[in-house]
């Protein structure tokens, strides 16, 4: 069956360190993978999109990698800050099919 797994439900890291979140998928052939941030009581906010033929994408302190052989995406936040604390969701998309979300990882950056 098709599945998207995000490495852990919760991740705690020290301020200033790099946070690495993992998204693994099985039985999908996504053309694109997106990462969203969600704060409590709010809807997801789009952060980055990476295409299947792209290995890496960067935006300010964020970096996403996409390995279609391993069926995995890694999401990095460098020089993390307490304001980065939130739930991060990965979502797959192929063509015009609906977005398929993972459950998310709740990141806590401790000062």
């Amino acid at each position, binding site marked *: 069956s098709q599945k*998207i797994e995000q490495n852990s439900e919760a991740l705690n890291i020290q301020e200033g360190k790099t946070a690495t979140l993992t998204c693994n998928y099985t039985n999908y052939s996504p*053309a694109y993978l997106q990462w969203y941030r969600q704060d409590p009581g*709010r*809807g*997801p*906010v789009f952060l980055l999109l990476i295409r299947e033929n792209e290995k890496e994408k960067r935006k300010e302190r964020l970096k996403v990698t996409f390995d279609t052989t391993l069926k995995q995406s890694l999401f990095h936040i460098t020089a993390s800050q307490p304001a980065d604390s939130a739930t991060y969701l990965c979502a797959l998309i*192929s063509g015009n099919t*609906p*977005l398929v979300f993972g*459950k998310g990882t709740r990141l806590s950056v401790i000062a």
Partner: protein
Amino acid sequence: EAGVTQFPSHSVIEKGQTVTLRCDPISGHDNLYWYRRVMGKEIKFLLHFVKESKQDESGMPNNRFLAERTGGTYSTLKVQPAELEDSGVYFCASSQDTGARGEQYFGPGTRLTVT
């Protein structure tokens, strides 16, 4: 620019009652999506409108759910009659383009509690 808005923010109803959720997308966005997150589970797609037409309603759980988008502007999602398992957070999103080209903008969600 105003974002996606949803009303109400929270609704508590009894099993068997009817509830109507409303979504106002970003002006000019032809694509409107409904999603639902049940506690402990991932956000799941319900349906997709392009203007006033239903493009994809493969995620609608059953015929107790009815979505409309009159005039291609705001959309409503009616649950009738509500069951306990309908509890969750209902998100609406809109986008200018479809598929992966279209970054989706989400509303804050409506938390539905069925007792």
